[in-house]
């Protein structure tokens, strides 16, 4: 009896002890991103503009040409997103952990809110920011923001699998949403194609909506 009590306490401890991360953004799941993002789209970053407001805060406005909308509605085929930070004259304002899209970048973007101006408009920062690259055969493949190959998405929602104890916990972001499976190598040809990835997102959307 005593032994069972000790083991059960140990199991409980194992459940609630997790590895922490020192970053400023919470880790999110793909389902949470899909649920809480107002707009999810595939597009290309086509123009950049840097502005300084009255408080001398510098923002970078990135215009995207929308190719496909995965979730939500948007009345135009271009959208402008505002990211905090940028260079104005000699002064650069950098925000730690912020990874702005690059000019000409083709990607899939999870926009948290179309109404609010946020530090980073993408849900979970880098977690809601996927980049599409061509493999040597010309196929469009999905990479994470830091160019790791997205090889899959876990079948069951990480949120659903979590115990109540774990659901209360919030790990911090390592730049990749919780359900995304990445290859250790930065090779495009092992990652999902854009169509495969979007199919998974649509399927997940159907399930959670």
């Amino acid at each position, binding site marked *: 009896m*005593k032994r069972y*009590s*000790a*083991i059960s*306490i*140990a199991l*409980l*401890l*194992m459940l*609630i*002890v*997790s*590895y*922490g*991360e*020192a*970053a*400023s*953004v*919470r*880790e*999110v799941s793909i389902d949470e991103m899909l649920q*809480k993002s107002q707009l999810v789209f595939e597009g290309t970053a086509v123009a950049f503009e840097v502005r300084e*407001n009255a*408080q*001398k*805060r510098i923002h970078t406005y990135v215009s995207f040409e929308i190719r496909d909308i995965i979730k939500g509605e948007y009345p135009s085929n271009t959208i402008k997103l505002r990211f*905090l*930070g940028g260079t104005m004259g*000699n*002064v*650069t*304002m*950098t*925000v*730690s*952990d912020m990874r702005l899209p690059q000019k000409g970048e083709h990607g899939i973007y999870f926009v*948290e*809110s179309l109404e*609010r*101006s*946020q*530090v*980073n*408009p993408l*849900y*979970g*920062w880098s*977690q809601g920011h996927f980049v599409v690259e061509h493999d040597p055969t010309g196929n469009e493949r999905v990479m994470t923001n*830091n160019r790791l190959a997205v090889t899959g998405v876990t079948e069951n929602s990480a949120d659903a699998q979590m115990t109540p*104890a774990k659901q*209360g*916990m*919030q*790990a*911090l*972001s*390592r*730049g990749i949403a919780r359900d995304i499976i990445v290859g250790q190598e930065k090779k495009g040809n092992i990652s999902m194609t854009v169509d495969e990835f979007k199919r998974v997102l649509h399927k997940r959307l159907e399930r959670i909506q």
Partner: protein
Amino acid sequence: MINNSRHYLISVKLTRGEFVMTKKRRKRVLSRFMIAILIAALNMLFTDGLFSILYCPIALPPPGVSPANAYQLDGFSWPQPTTTFYVDIPGADGLWNDSFETAMYSWGVDTIFKYRINRDIYEDPCDLPEGRNGVAFVDTACGDAWGDSTLAITYSYHNGSILNQVDILFNRNDSWNVYSTSWNSWPWVGINDFQRIAVHELGHALGLDHEDSGIPTIMGSYAGDTTTPQQDDIDGVAAIYGCTNFFCDVPPGYWAESYITAIYNANITTGCSQNPLKYCPEDKVTRELMAVFITRALNQVPADGYCRGISPFSDVRFDRWSCKYIKRLAELGITAGYLDGRFGPEDPVTREQMAAFLTKALGAVPPDGYCGVTNPFIDVPFEHWSCEYIKKLAELGITSGYGDGRYGPDDYVTRAQLAVFLSKAFLSPG
């Protein structure tokens, strides 16, 4: 929502105190709890070890080549290795102020960078940039919504690569406290550790970027339970601002400091890392590294491509980085390799091997039976193969052993010891 109290843990205890416990029962529960912690700790130890094997193979860098530093730099820095934060974060009986100050201090423990503090003077981090660094809990990130997942951010203003101002903002809408146990672990589930994130953000504030290669660092976006700057972070700061010592890892007064400096000045070593400059004094010396050092000391370094497509030993390919040194060492008669035709380039050098190499390099090889029937050191029997070399080395004044009568023939040579051996063997005093 800030957990605005130092008494969070106590309140948990009080809640649990509702159960009436007898002394005997308390003792029993405590012993079970201790067993449970032991099991959990063993589990963590095991999984950590397994993780290391699966994902973090530790590859030793080629000897003589800089070990890979993993730190990432933001590309901007302060003009001097110091800056001042104005710290007045109200609430929690000064807990936030104390913790932020501790976080600032942690960066100065092993680096040249010193954060200075103007305590109890508030500097609004959302004010116009005017060269004063501030920190605060705020409802919005200076007008921009935090978003659902953002806990804290660091704003850095810089002209080119020179920092002018840094502000650190914490999301007031989230739950915070200060603890040093595992992130988000009981009883801190759902609560962020303010101090750990402050240390991380202060790392950004002095010019470090995220580092995700898997080695211990406070700058990882996935940093485990790290709460203070680690060696790689310290190296990163040294790469930006330099360090107090000539070799960052050879502190003033280190027992072999003068010998290490001497062989550096004689171009026998270039250190084990260039930026920051390090010597790695406690690292073991491999046989190929020893070949490098001895050929340099003898001014016998051959030109590149010296092996000309021919491998001098079965385990030293002609295109190996150290081939030319090993080949030259063999030509000089200082080594013949192992009896099976191998050289063992990555094998560590023992102190008895070192004695043989050095006496040969100095042209002072003693005759057979040089030890007679006397042991030169208590752990070097006169009939042992290396006795004559060790005795000769002692007679030349290159070694006096460990000072307790032992020589340690089977002990591996460290880079610090190598510096002493080489200085005494090849460099004139002074």
